[in-house]
């Protein structure tokens, strides 16, 4: 044991020494490798109000004032390859190569240039440093990798109600990039796991076997608070970018309002969402953002939401993204989302189609919680009622007829099913499943008894 103690001094020294090396590096090379500048911080003022904002709002940090002392990344720069941050970029550059050819990447010139345009406008001098990937993922999110790879998920595009809401989230992600939250998180994690193993070993040497568990808890807690600070910082930058570019700053809080009403409609903390622990609570963010909106713009000075061009470009995608969401089979969540879309001006015929689809699919798959046979029958009837409502309007979605046909067919109402299928094929003669629908029309016999 004495031997062990003697060596523990050596081990502790070595750990502390290695800890000393993790000072923050601020070495940059020009992104196009034509020129280089090191240790210069000439462009913290590129988005000029950011440092001041952060100093003014020290109360938003859980771990103290100016806790990171990280400089913002200058525009048109990448970290030198010998740094930890350079390694992080290297890894994400490789990940980005895969994103470029990913199967769920949405390749649409109009939508792409619309979102690229918002990114460019908000990020100003960083425009060339951020690349947008639109991914078909039915969840409410957007992400920013340390190297400037931004992913916008289709589930977020579905829920955004205007351009200002898109910009609110995009501005938040730009904040993560400029403030280098990727390297902050990595270095924090390395430092804390190093500290964790150190405490565990010292604890073990002293015969304290539970040290590992305590360390684990402390570790998790400090990582989360670190992450929450990052989120607050990104929120703050995001809303300032909205104000600077003439967007209505109230829309940032509305994004959070929508997350709350979708996930936690009764105001009870729901465990179905994983982001609650690692992010400031949605309610806190909504409140802070509302307050900031009032400070930045206020009554009579609100910016724009650019509803018309948003509807023209994003509107046509919503049906596809809504159908993705319905396929998740989370009926209650989807019905709440449909309600939100209904309140925000989605055409009634579309809403009726979406509701009908949820009932139709729920009827097919059953709902384990309730009296199954009876409920399934009810669901088919509900679906048919919704589809009928939808087609009474000339704005209806063509797929409504197919779904109506399938619903009638499942009830054995073959004559009605045939009529609906024929109406569907008249509207979409080249549908992917046209052959199957034709086959069903031809072979449908007498009503199933």
């Amino acid at each position, binding site marked *: 044991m004495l031997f062990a103690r003697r060596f523990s001094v050596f081990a502790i020294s070595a*750990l502390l020494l290695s800890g000393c090396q993790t000072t923050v590096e601020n070495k940059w090379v020009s992104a196009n490798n034509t020129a280089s500048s090191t240790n210069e911080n000439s462009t913290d003022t590129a988005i000029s109000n950011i440092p001041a904002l952060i100093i003014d709002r020290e109360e938003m940090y859980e771990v103290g004032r100016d806790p990171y002392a990280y400089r913002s990344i200058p525009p048109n720069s990448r970290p030198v390859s010998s740094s930890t941050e*350079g390694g992080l970029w*290297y890894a994400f550059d*490789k990940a980005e190569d*895969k994103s470029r050819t990913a*199967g769920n990447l949405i390749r649409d010139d109009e939508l792409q240039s619309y979102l690229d345009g918002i990114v460019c406008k908000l990020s100003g001098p960083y425009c060339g440093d951020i690349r947008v990937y639109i991914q078909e993922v039915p969840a409410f999110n957007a992400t920013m990798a340390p190297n400037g790879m931004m992913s916008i998920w289709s589930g977020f595009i579905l829920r955004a109600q205007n351009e200002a809401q898109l910009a609110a989230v995009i501005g938040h992600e730009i904040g993560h990039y400029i403030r280098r939250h990727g390297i902050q998180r990595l270095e924090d994690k390395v430092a804390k796991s190093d500290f964790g*193993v150190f405490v565990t070993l010292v604890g073990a040497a002293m015969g304290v076997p539970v040290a590992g568990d305590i360390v684990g808890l402390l570790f998790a807690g400090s990582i989360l608070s670190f992450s929450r600070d990052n989120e607050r910082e990104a929120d703050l930058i995001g809303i300032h970018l909205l104000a600077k570019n003439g967007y209505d700053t109230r829309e940032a809080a509305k994004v959070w309002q929508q997350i709350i009403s979708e996930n936690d409609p009764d105001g009870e903390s729901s465990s179905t969402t994983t982001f609650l622990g690692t*992010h400031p609570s949605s309610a806190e963010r909504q409140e802070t953002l509302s307050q900031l909106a009032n400070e930045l713009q206020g009554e009579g000075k609100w910016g724009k939401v650019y509803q018309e061009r948003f509807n023209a470009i994003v509107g046509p995608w919503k049906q596809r993204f809504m159908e993705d969401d319905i396929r998740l089979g989370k009926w209650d969540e989807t019905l709440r989302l449909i309600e939100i879309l209904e309140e925000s001006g989605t055409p009634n015929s579309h809403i009726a189609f979406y509701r009908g689809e949820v009932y139709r699919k729920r009827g097919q798959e059953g709902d384990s919680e309730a009296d199954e046979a009876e409920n399934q029958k009810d669901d088919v009837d509900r679906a048919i009622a919704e589809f009928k409502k939808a087609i009474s309007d000339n704005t209806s979605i063509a797929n409504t007829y197919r779904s109506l046909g399938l619903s009638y067919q499942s009830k054995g109402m073959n004559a009605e099913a045939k009529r609906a299928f024929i109406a569907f094929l008249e509207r979409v003669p080249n549908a992917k499943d046209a052959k199957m629908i034709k086959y069903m029309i031809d072979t449908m016999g007498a009503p199933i008894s």
Partner: protein
Amino acid sequence: MLFDPGIKGVAMTFIHHKNIGPMIFLITAVFALSACQTAAVYTSDILKRPDASIKVVVMPIDIELSELNAGGSLTTRADWSEAARGYMETELNAFLATKNVSSAKYVPLTDNVDPHSKEVQLSKLFGTVGTAISIHQYIPAYNLPTKANQFDWSLGPDVKVIADRYDADYALFTYIRDSYTTAGRAAVIIFAAILGAGVQGGQQYGYASLVDLRSGEIVWFNRLARGTGDLRTGARASETVDALMIEFPK
């Protein structure tokens, strides 16, 4: 999760590092379940030589070198990785020359982001098949009943697009993940050893695979999983290449 540098998005999900997570699991599994010996598998110990000359296309080397920190987290080193790719290329070409084989460096089609491109799909497919072989061929617990006593993996006949572009006979795919113990980790290893616990140091994990560009069959495959090897300097890279290319067909 040992390594997770991703930034939180606005709502709920991390961007995970694409490779490290499963690889850590794999490395652990490989070390836990099999000895660290190297053994190649192959369908034939000679290369088919339709005429005197034979050409191998060296596919882009998928390589990452990283530092293993005291607490077990990995930080990628871009400078080491980029230099090591160069050393590997040089040494692989030299190795192939000793086998009397000419080599060509594969250059991806410029800005090819078409997900339906055969070349794009082939490089993804190789990643999947290579990982599958390194698990199912080398870890007894994961041996596949349908592959007992036979080595018959293939990328399919679409590899012909590479054969045609380079007028080549074979393609060589390589994958390397190499980590190096930091001073802090070394201290942990020593301290833990005194307490009677084993703590892992840096490891070199990787595989190489030779694909017949006429049939798509993988004719030779080797895996490295060891606690030695150094790709940080050109001088020692040949040792890793020799270990990786062991039992390469004549």
